[in-house]
């Protein structure tokens, strides 16, 4: 049986004393692709940041794998990154290696090779000298995915990776995520607020709706969204995928 990579138990999340979501329970298995789906402001990003230990949980526990804290590759919402910074695409990806480089030392050659490889993997090698701020939405997203890959992650977390980009670019990003999932066997956790952004081949959907967390298959979540009926229990499980 595949081991759990992330197990969330009775988790309550929020900022300071303000609770955003409570009674969250789910687990992600190694190599799974899971989607956190819910409307804007429902607490998806807060849940992500809690998993990443950026903000502490208000209550409950998160268990990471069996023994060690996994390496996370985080792809934030690109709108949150200020375009005043004159980074080239290559420099943005290079940031992914900052966790391994010692102070006062130049960038090691192996990191430069890794960055080139990550840029190649996302199909952006030819744009490496281009300013990040001058790229299109889809291209920026690819660069941010490459940056996350440069951390050599066990788990890839993508926050709204296909929001605000054109349909063609959306398709390309979904293809890229699919490829990373299948070829690299990466565990992927992705946020979206639009149901048609959820790939059909997703393993698990964590649906946040009316301040409750529901797990289920794509069909069940779509059905739930349509009839807008969520049981009164805090967390419920639907389907057999979990």
């Amino acid at each position: 049986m595949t081991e759990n990579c992330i197990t969330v138990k009775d988790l309550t999340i929020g900022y300071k004393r303000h609770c955003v979501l409570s009674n969250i329970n789910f687990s992600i298995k190694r190599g799974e692709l899971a989607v956190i789906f819910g409307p804007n402001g429902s607490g998806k990003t807060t849940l992500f940041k809690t998993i990443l230990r950026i903000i502490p949980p208000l209550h409950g526990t998160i268990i990471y794998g069996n023994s060690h804290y996994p390496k996370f590759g985080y792809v934030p919402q690109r709108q949150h990154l200020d375009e005043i910074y004159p980074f080239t695409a290559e420099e943005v990806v290079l940031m992914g290696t900052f966790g391994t480089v010692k102070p006062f030392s130049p960038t090691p050659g192996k990191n430069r090779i890794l960055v080139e490889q990550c840029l190649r993997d996302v199909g952006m090698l030819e744009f490496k000298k281009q300013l990040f701020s001058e790229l299109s939405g889809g291209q920026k997203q690819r660069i941010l995915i490459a940056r996350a890959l440069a951390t050599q992650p066990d788990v890839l977390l993508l926050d709204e990776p296909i929001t605000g980009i054109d349909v063609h670019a959306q398709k390309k990003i979904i293809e890229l995520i699919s490829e990373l999932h299948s070829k690299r066997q990466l565990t992927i956790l992705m946020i979206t607020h639009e149901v048609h952004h959820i790939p059909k081949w997703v393993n698990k959907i964590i649906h946040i709706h009316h301040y409750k967390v529901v797990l289920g298959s794509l069909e069940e979540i779509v059905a739930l969204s349509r009839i807008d009926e969520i049981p009164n229990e805090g967390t419920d499980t639907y389907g057999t995928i979990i």
Partner: protein
Amino acid sequence: MEQLFEILSPHFLLRNALYAGLLVGLVCPQVGIFFVLRRMVLLGIALPQVSNAGIAFAFLLHTLGWHFFAHMESEKVMALSGSIVFTLIAIFTLAILERVQKGFTENRIGFTYALAGAASILFVAWNPYGQTEVLSMLRGEIISIPDLYLLSMLAIYGAIFIFLIGFHRNFILVSYDIDMAITLGKKAILWDILLYLIIGVVISFGVMNVGPLVIFGFLLIPPMAARMVTRGISMFCIISSVIGVAASFIGFYLSYRFDLPTGPTDVALLCIIFALLFIGKIIFRLKR
């Protein structure tokens, strides 16, 4: 040309002022890039004013017979202490208010600037003995720097420069994407505090030695100019300091050649460089 050779001579009478200017031109833009990139330019205006108020306050205390350092007669040490204390209190108060998001950033900085400006003038007005010194600092008069102050400036600015270069990745990452920094295991709050400390020390020490106008000019204008003409963060940082050092040297030469006050000449030259680069960029775009 004769004056240029004179300036370059190791026995040049005003060499300390030249070296201090070059140090400011090299180091201040490296701190200033964080003002520009973090969109804290207004803070770059307000903090030198706060530092100035600290100096004026220290002079006032000294004249009134209050001493921070009982056995030290030096007014300069008192002034530096006042500058550092006022600047650090201001920067950390503003940073804490920013973090808890109380009110608007611009309002807070505007209030700080107005308060510090008024306080500086009042402290000077109450202290007629300190008036000449503080007014000369306000004008940015960097001519009279003794060896001891130059050496201490070299030590402090040199250490800060090396520190900023050595930990460049951490400062940039924490400024650009704090979430990513935490994910990579960086202690984001620690790096933020260190950056604020560096800003506080650079401004306090700089204002003390070369005046608020010069510090403000060298903190902000070189990075603003460099950002227009560079691609990539590394080139941006290098060109910022190149502009700072070049403006400092040419400004010193012009002020010596035409008998002008050095600080304002340096800042005016920085503005001219900024304007020329801006025009050059427009022409370059039109040609493309």
